[in-house]
């Protein structure tokens, strides 16, 4: 076997542009994703996203499982924020089947959704700071998030993949004393927020690096299909919980946090505000759950023999990444005929990222991607 000959560089065409593979093995990328950028010096003049590294063919194997069996699959679609996936799937099935979710289960779902939003944002605080080189925030964010995972473990029996929300409600009632422990944790989080601000949000270096990075205007955002915190960072107060309310969100009092900058900093500030709002919602949920009794799941037929009536439904949920949509079609059989998952990041991680990267500098690629909170498994499914 001869040793590999490397072509003589002199024979290559002269070019002051060169291509760089950013990922898939790169610490700055959240998950397994890559962007091929063409650089002119440090400035990016062309970016092409390349995903598919986390593709498992969810929508195909979901067609091969019973309605109830899919509740084990759906949380795995987006790893940092699994609860909206479970809730959206469950709600789409309920819309087709006409199932009535008891009030207590709805409040438990709101509690889970908001706790999961806090976890996802804490994780993004850490990640975003890491891409700027500020690792302390990563340590704090992930550790604080871990305390919330302990709460999830206590309620649902698993840290990350709860498999807790099922069509018709939730699988078990809350263990006693968990509401008090959540309140204590919220107080601890609120005590930590000032320290986060000192370290990160009011950090001069971060502000300088984040201002103007990956800026997009409100019109561009709306045109590009941006949703969630990224859209609110451009000043558009659009939130699925308010525009297309579901569960008991109409009864929940929270305000939509918006910024005007439209850049990485604004996006982080919106997320910080959303954590504060989420804490407010969780407190309301806890108060409601102390009053509302009753079952946590409506009467479900035997899962091995449950034919959902033919029909389709598009359930939209506000996940921490943006607008999450589950379009489910049933042909009256025991298994879904078609499930289409519209992840928020399928917009943010591909076309939006490619547009934002053009003109920005190579050291900002990771920060822009993390500030968009683009979660690759949502894109590849």
């Amino acid at each position: 076997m001869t040793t590999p000959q490397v072509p003589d560089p002199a024979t290559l065409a002269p070019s002051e542009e060169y291509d760089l593979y950013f990922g898939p093995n790169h610490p700055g990328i959240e998950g397994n994703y890559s962007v091929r950028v063409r650089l002119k010096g440090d400035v990016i003049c062309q970016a092409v996203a390349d995903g598919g590294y986390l593709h498992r063919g969810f929508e195909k194997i979901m067609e091969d499982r019973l309605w109830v069996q899919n509740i084990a699959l759906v949380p795995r679609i987006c790893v940092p924020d699994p609860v909206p996936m479970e809730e959206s799937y469950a709600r789409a099935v309920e819309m087709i089947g006409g199932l009535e979710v008891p009030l207590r289960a709805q409040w438990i779902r709101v509690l889970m959704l908001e706790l999961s939003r806090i976890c996802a944002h804490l994780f993004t605080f850490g990640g975003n700071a890491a891409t700027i080189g500020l690792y302390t925030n990563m340590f704090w964010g992930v550790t604080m998030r871990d305390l919330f995972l302990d709460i999830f473990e206590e309620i649902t029996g698993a840290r990350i993949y709860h498999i807790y929300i099922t069509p018709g409600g939730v699988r078990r009632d809350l263990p006693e004393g968990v509401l008090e422990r959540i309140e204590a944790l919220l107080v601890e989080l609120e005590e930590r927020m000032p320290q986060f601000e000192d370290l990160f949000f009011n950090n001069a270096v971060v502000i300088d690096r984040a201002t103007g990075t990956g800026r997009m205007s409100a019109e561009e955002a709306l045109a590009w299909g941006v949703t969630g915190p990224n859209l609110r960072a451009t000043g558009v107060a659009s939130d699925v919980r308010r525009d297309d309310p579901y569960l008991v969100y109409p009864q929940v009092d929270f305000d939509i946090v918006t910024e005007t900058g439209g850049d990485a900093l604004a996006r982080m500030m919106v997320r910080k505000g959303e954590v504060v709002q989420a804490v407010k919602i969780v407190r309301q949920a806890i108060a409601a759950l102390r009053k509302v009794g009753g079952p946590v799941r409506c009467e479900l037929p035997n899962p091995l023999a449950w034919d959902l009536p033919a029909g389709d439904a598009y359930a939209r949920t506000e996940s921490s990444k943006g607008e999450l949509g589950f379009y489910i079609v049933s042909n009256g059989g025991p298994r879904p005929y078609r499930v289409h998952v519209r992840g928020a990041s399928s917009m943010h991680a591909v076309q939006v990222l490619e547009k934002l990267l053009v003109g920005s500098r190579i050291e900002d690629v990771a920060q822009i991607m993390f500030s968009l909170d683009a979660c690759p498994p949502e894109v590849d499914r």
Partner: protein
Amino acid sequence: MTDKPLKSHVRPPQDTMPGGAGQGCPAPDAQTRSIWRRIMDDFADHCRARSLFVLHYCTGCGAIELPPTITSRFDMERVGITPMVTPRQADILLITGYLSLKTLKRVILSYEQMQGPKYVLGFGSCTINGGMYWNSYATMKRLDQYIPTDLFIAGCMPRPEAVQQVLLKLIEDIDAGRANAWQDYYRNYDFYLGNQQRLFGAGWNTPTDVIGEARHYGYYGPGTEGEHTRLLAEGGGSAARLAHAEYPSTALTGRIKS
């Protein structure tokens, strides 16, 4: 996967006799090493076990449990384990859960670039027998068919404490000199290459000259070359392999509109 090689192929026995038939210096096995060599090896093992670098590559969904394991709550730095960005400097390759075929190619490339001795840990059910995605067309089912795996851990996904335990067990194995699954990649390269070609077609190859390395390290055994490596050679010399490599630099220009 148009021209698929033979469906099933028997994997040659693991432990080949020291001083095997192949060329190059015989593999240094425990008994014949000099006292001095054995002291140095044990000392090297001891030091290596205390400062393992994990390749920072989130291959699957289990990677979400790595930040807690590495950051302050479960802090694996206490036993000297920290993430490392590049394969060249990494010791451990964590396969955290399922591997889609596209990622499997990158994992094999990264694995071959890592310096021996290197260790592979399989997290969760997906690496053992397919896990949840057993009926998916897009994921590999058994990790130990494509790269040699030191330890598996049960879980879907394993908790940080479980990750701690597998890393501690790995440290123990390294100390005891048992963690040498990586040598198996050289000894039975044909078996691994066969499985890889079965997924990616006979033309699949990587720029690393594994057979040359096997000879260099002295792990060349009867399983290193065989029917699949012959297919590899037939696919043209190293130049062809470079041209046909997975990531031709011209791909980008083709699409850019001037």
